[in-house]
């Protein structure tokens, strides 16, 4: 102990103090970030009266009545319909998006073709293009095709690799895969499509998992799309059903039921996130976009 110089001891103390400060800040911020969600979970088990009288997130008792009553809704439909409706466009969106984005990314990452530089800049530019400008003409397009109040306007754009974020992420990933495998396969007589399917696709798995998770969460959370295109109650996804439940001003608003359904709406994203955390971080940091 005596071997430590005064300077060394002071340096150590300083390090401990700064570590304490860092953890203090991080923990305080984490609490503020997470508390609303914890509180939401707690509130779903509370009575309406308890929700408005206590700051504590732990409920006095566990009661699933808000879930059961909330699920039934005040309409002729239950949340079963609304969840099934949501999956009816979320799943096709994921599939089309994966197929189209992979093909396009492969084209950009592995081939030279005329105007490639220009097209690539265009791809990057669309990442910044405000979607607000194209919204009205797109609505008119789907209207003229008689496809309003269907899920087609939500699904169809994904056939055309409409999310530059995914294309870019896959391009980045493909670039990191060495090309000698492709070359060897070419010598063996594989055509370019076979190379993609047999050689590159297995290697692309982490990137594809990231795309799937992001597309799932974004499509599931999407509110404006369904708000514009889906009008009949029987076709409502969860997002619109929740919005409807807070708009019903007649009678007492059963907040505990609404909050219970809100928590269920967040659950798929939360489960997916915890199941595949590392893919998230990789996805975001590799392309540095969205949010």
């Amino acid at each position, binding site marked *: 102990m005596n071997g430590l110089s005064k300077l060394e001891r002071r340096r150590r103390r300083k390090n401990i103090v700064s570590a304490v400060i860092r953890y203090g800040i991080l923990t305080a911020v984490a609490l503020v970030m997470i508390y609303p969600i914890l509180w939401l979970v707690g509130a779903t088990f509370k009575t309406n009266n308890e929700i408005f009288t206590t700051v504590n997130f732990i409920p006095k008792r566990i009661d699933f009545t808000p879930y059961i009553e909330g699920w039934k809704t005040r309409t002729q439909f239950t949340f079963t319909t609304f969840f099934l409706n949501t999956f009816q466009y979320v799943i096709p969106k994921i599939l089309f998006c994966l197929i*189209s984005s992979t093909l396009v990314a492969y084209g950009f990452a592995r081939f030279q073709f005329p105007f490639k530089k220009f097209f690539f800049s265009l791809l990057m530019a669309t990442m910044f293009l405000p979607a607000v400008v194209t919204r009205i003409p797109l609505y008119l397009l789907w209207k003229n095709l008689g496809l309003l109040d269907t899920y087609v306007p939500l699904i169809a754009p994904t056939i055309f690799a409409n999310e530059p974020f995914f294309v870019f992420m896959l391009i980045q990933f493909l670039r990191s895969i060495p090309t000698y495998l492709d070359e060897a396969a070419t010598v063996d007589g594989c055509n*370019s499509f076979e190379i993609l399917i047999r050689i590159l696709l297995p290697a692309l798995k982490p990137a594809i998992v990231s795309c799937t998770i992001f597309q799932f969460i974004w499509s599931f959370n999407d509110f404006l799309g369904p708000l514009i295109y889906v009008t009949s109650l029987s076709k409502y996804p969860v997002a619109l059903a929740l919005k409807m439940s*807070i708009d019903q001003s007649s009678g007492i608003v059963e907040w505990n039921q609404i909050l219970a359904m809100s928590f269920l709406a967040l659950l798929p994203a939360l489960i997916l996130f915890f199941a595949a955390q590392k893919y998230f971080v990789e996805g975001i940091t590799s392309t540095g976009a969205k949010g």
Partner: protein
Amino acid sequence: MKHSKIGLLYILPWLAGIIFLTLYPFVNALVISFTDYNLVRKPNFVGFGNYIDLFRNADFRSTLTATIKYTIFTVPLQLSFALFIAYILNFQLKGINFYRTAYYIPSLLGGNVAVAVLWRFLFQQDGFINRFIGIFGAAPIPWLSSPNGAMSVIVLLKVWQFGSSMLIFLAALKDVPQELYEAASVDGSSRLYSFFRITIPLITPTIFFNLVMQMVNAFQEFNGPYLVTGRGPLNATYLTSMYIYDNAFKFFNMGYASAASWLLFIIIMAVTAILFATQNKWVFYSDEGN
């Protein structure tokens, strides 16, 4: 790299999409903005009529003010917060994964209607936030019933979702060579000094990217105000994107709404152009060029 036109075949889906679902609607919006199209009548050419009406309309002008205010508050707050937390997380700390997760969850869930429901509920007059500050003896704040309160609620909602900017900053901070800090500390520089003199300059490209991205998003914000505060007291949170939505999809004034969307687009592009023009004054790209 193969020189082959087959590459064009692979990018064909995207190319078709960019033409029919991006460029065509983009130009089409401009064309419609010069008409009085309302879905019922045959469209008539009205020249700059819609644009003139927009400038004369006090409601529209107030949405622009609200949108600019929202952007000016949200973007710097969110980015500085994201950078600050990323900076702390970048020290070799135990349990970094837990914190990274905790901070990212709000960004992940932020777009969900459920979060908007929760926020609307938390900020009610007798809601959680007011009861919480009441513990410390503070008077309840009229969050949803005063113009500034309503604006703060939607700004806070966005700032709360700083997680993805934070992850991008964190990745950039990891790339700052550790030797630079060591050299600085040998020279006797303080942490604060090295933060502003070493860290910040080296990650300016990332700051710039986040700045442009978040700015473009903030100018188009819709979900937060639409779901949590609505128009807000005195239209305090009636943002331009909501104005466009109302005119297009409630009143079906497609010409007028298209003109408003083009104006918003021009404003966003102008701000982006200004940011790009200032780039060489403060953004440092390393020569490595990756």
